[in-house]
């Protein structure tokens, strides 16, 4: 516990120091994170829950912190990714030195990390809410780092409003939980009105986690933020929503089945919508943001399956669902952090996030390309990397339920499997597009043509994250040792060892595939040894002068699939068809705004605003009118109260 609190203290202190000496910011961040990692690791290693409770002089508040397996498990990615993001950010922010106050940026960065840690540690409603809101504010200020740009300001506004509305639901939720005992300490909470509490938690935490349709802020805010911050927000901050949901579930006692079904539904929809929208994007970071919605969906799906297992008395189902979800939390932190850092390196090198202006970067920035490829394979859930492992656990859970449970449960579960398969295929397509269009082929613009590899401080973290993806993928059985105590916080986890035994074989198979690749590669080398290996242009039907503009674009690559999901996407097309024998040059432009934003939130806000502005005539400017209000109020009250 002391180590964890010390880590938080270091982070906060370092943040304050950064206000004067901004170079101190990343140093303190790394130091704090390392200390924190040690602390979290100790908790997981010893398996002992440590807690600390001090009186705190605010209404209903107490400084009550506790680190059990669940908290410690979430602390690992928080501290780990934050440290790497800090190292990366030190170099990434360099161009702004002198133009902007980096001190403030680092202050809020450290504050963000510290508050995330506190969110996970807090065991008192007020303390949690304070940490939660500090987290929101800190990230808001980081998002609006480049507030001279209109789109960034707009994104910041959207994010701020969304997160604030979400918090409102949490206020009500905590009060309801603490209603019977009059204390807001988690250990005094009672599960009265559990259903209502669950719904409030779903909305409140779902807004932060980015469940569809509460995700609107996500594709706006993540691209706007500096890339190492996007990595942090997408990699771990939105996971605090998942943590909150899980924590509340531990307080609510045995779940009814509909909670599970709700989460499964929410997860499936979020994942599908998320990945389909990701496919349609041409802004690299926006694409990654939508894919975060997808992965959050997969995590939620896992939790839903876990709850279903608990409510229907299928312990294996429960254990596998939760294990898959939790492992995916860490995995997503790894590869999404990696991908955002990679995107940042690209942005840093080329100055654009528009993938249609990129291409051929693999030759310019080999290290970034390799790590990005690893991230892409991992996030597509392909073996032998970590993404497959967590998705496999969820698949396995669903299959076990689908095979053994009664039809009423089995049919939906097997439908879920089909959905997962579809999502997997789409994810692979999406990231084949992302990697292929950005890093392969010829540069599509001067930006890309004159790109340069990122510096060591940016490459290092990416390499570490990539190796993390590989490690979990190839050593997956070891993760069970960490997962079991965490899962057991939520549901009996002793069945997990038995159920998850295949992981051994899978990792074996993964290694096998790698060996095979090596063998085939060797064969190829032997074959080509001493033979003529020529170079020429790409075959283009004999047209021998290909230009970069003849390449397939990202949009055209995704077009068949986006066409398939057109009703869902609502893509806007502007195209003037060719006419005549010698048609004039024409253009085709498409953009895919977020449907829920365009069709739901915007109209509703508009209506509310219009409706309210009608009432403005109240303040009409005539003093006579104002006195009339007084007289009328008086008369109404007298007549109403005295008769």
């Amino acid at each position, binding site marked *: 516990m002391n180590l964890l609190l010390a880590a938080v203290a270091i982070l906060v202190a370092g943040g304050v120091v950064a206000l004067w000496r901004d170079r101190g910011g990343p140093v303190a961040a790394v130091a704090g994170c390392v200390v924190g990692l040690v602390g979290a690791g100790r908790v997981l290693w010893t398996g002992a829950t440590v807690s600390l409770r001090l009186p705190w002089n605010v209404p209903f508040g107490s400084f009550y912190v506790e680190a059990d397996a669940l908290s410690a498990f979430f602390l690992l990615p928080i501290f780990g990714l934050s440290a790497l993001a800090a190292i990366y950010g030190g170099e990434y922010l360099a161009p702004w030195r002198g133009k902007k106050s980096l001190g403030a940026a680092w202050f809020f960065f450290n504050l963000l990390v510290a508050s995330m840690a506190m969110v996970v540690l807090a065991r008192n409603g007020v303390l949690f809410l304070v940490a939660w809101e500090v987290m929101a504010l800190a990230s808001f200020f980081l998002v609006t780092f480049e507030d001279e740009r209109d789109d960034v300001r707009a994104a910041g506004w959207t994010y701020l409003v969304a997160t604030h509305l979400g918090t409102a639901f949490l206020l009500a939720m905590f009060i309801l939980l603490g209603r019977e005992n009059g204390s807001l300490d988690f250990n005094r909470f009672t599960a009265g009105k559990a259903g209502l509490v669950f719904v409030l938690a779903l909305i409140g935490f779902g807004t932060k986690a980015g469940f569809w349709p509460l995700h609107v802020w996500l594709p706006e805010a993540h691209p706007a933020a500096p890339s190492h911050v996007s990595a942090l927000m997408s990699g771990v901050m939105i996971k605090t929503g998942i943590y909150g949901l899980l924590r509340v579930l531990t307080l609510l006692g045995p779940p009814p089945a509909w909670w599970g079904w709700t989460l499964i539904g929410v997860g499936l929809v979020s994942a599908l919508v998320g990945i389909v929208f990701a496919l349609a994007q041409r802004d690299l970071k926006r694409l990654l943001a939508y894919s975060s919605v997808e992965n959050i969906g997969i995590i939620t799906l896992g939790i839903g399956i876990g709850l279903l297992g608990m409510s229907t008395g299928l312990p294996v189902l429960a254990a596998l669902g939760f294990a898959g979800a939790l492992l995916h939390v860490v995995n997503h932190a790894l590869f999404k952090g990696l991908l955002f850092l990679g995107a940042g390196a690209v942005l840093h090198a080329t100055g654009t996030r528009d993938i249609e202006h990129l291409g051929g970067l693999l030759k310019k920035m080999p290290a970034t390309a390799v790590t990005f490829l690893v991230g892409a394979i991992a996030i597509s859930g392909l073996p032998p990397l970590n993404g497959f492992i967590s998705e496999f656990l969820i698949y396995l859970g669903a299959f076990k339920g689908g095979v053994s449970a009664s039809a009423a449960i089995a049919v939906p579960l097997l439908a879920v499997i089909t959905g997962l398969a579809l999502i997997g295929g789409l994810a692979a397509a999406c990231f084949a597009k992302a990697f292929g269009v950005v890093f392969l082929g010829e540069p599509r613009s001067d930006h890309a043509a004159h790109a340069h590899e990122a510096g060591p401080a940016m490459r290092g973290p990416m390499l570490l994250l990539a190796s993390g993806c590989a490690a979990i993928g190839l050593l997956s059985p070891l993760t069970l040792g960490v997962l079991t105590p965490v899962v057991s916080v939520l549901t009996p986890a002793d069945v997990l060892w038995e159920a998850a035994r295949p992981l051994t074989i899978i990792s074996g198979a993964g290694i096998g595939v790698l060996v095979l690749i090596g063998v085939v590669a060797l*064969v*190829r080398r032997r074959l080509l040894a001493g033979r003529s290996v020529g170079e020429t242009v790409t075959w283009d039907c004999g047209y021998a002068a290909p230009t970069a503009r003849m390449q397939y674009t990202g949009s055209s690559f995704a077009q068949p699939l986006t066409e398939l999901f057109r009703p869902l996407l609502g893509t806007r097309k502007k195209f003037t068809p060719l006419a005549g024998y010698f048609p004039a040059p024409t253009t085709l432009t498409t953009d895919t705004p977020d449907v829920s934003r365009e069709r739901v939130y915007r109209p509703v806000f508009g209506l509310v605003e219009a409706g309210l502005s009608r009432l403005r005539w109240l303040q009409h400017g005539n003093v006579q009118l104002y006195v009339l209000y007084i007289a009328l109020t008086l008369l109404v009250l007298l007549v109403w109260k005295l008769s």
Partner: protein
Amino acid sequence: MMAFVHILFALVLAPLLLGVINRTKALFAGRNGQPLLQLYYDLAKLLRKGAVYSRTTSWVFRAGPIAGLAAVVAALAIVPFAGTGAPVSFAGDLVLFAYLFGLMRFFTVIAALDTGSSFEGMGASREVQFAALAEPVLFLALAALARRTGSLSLSGILGAVTPSEPVWALVAVALLVVLLAENARIPVDDPNTHLELTMIHEVMVLDHGGPDFAFILYGAALKLWVLGALLVGVVLPGENILLSLVAMLALAVVVGVIESTMARLRLLRVPQLLVGAGALAALALILVMR
């Protein structure tokens, strides 16, 4: 022991299937057609050649065929043949099975994109579209079988087949469509068209040559064999190896017949075909729920 024998069979006989298919088509077309062992000759020739690479390409282009071949060989180790379990089998291996094909596809696709050619980009784009639709069908079909047999491993499933029920027919049809789509056969794709604009799989490998191309062709043959083995396992259970091998050849003939009697669907129609197959699999799933 048997299991490894099957792998041996596959590695050796896979190219033969394509030969059979082509001979069947030739027969229908009233030609002599190429020799049964044509693909072997091609492979032998290609392996002896050097290579020519586009200046645009990078190591990804060279890695594509290698990873693809490795993945399909790994998948081969999971499918049982002739009732005997596969060397690798565990609860949920069907997921790994499907995702290995995903891995293969991913590398083929990025290798295609690495050339920067619009044709190969086009092919890649179609490939991912159809695969994204074919995968759910495969999973639905396997889910139905898993539910029916109560097992989560391919070996377990195919070990407990009772093909007397209609369910198996439905699943078989669905699997056949998946097989055709995954292996780029008519009615989804026409392997020996000569117009790049209409190709899917072929166009993706336009720029490959020499050993790389050999790997691709061999990998494709293995893929056909693997899915074929699955299909055969569903319709014709039993310990008899010879019978199963004959069934494989018969399947090749069937594919040939289909290719000769059907025309390639318009690309816009392909999704409907796959969704239809999905419907069949779903129906099977409902049926096994009783």
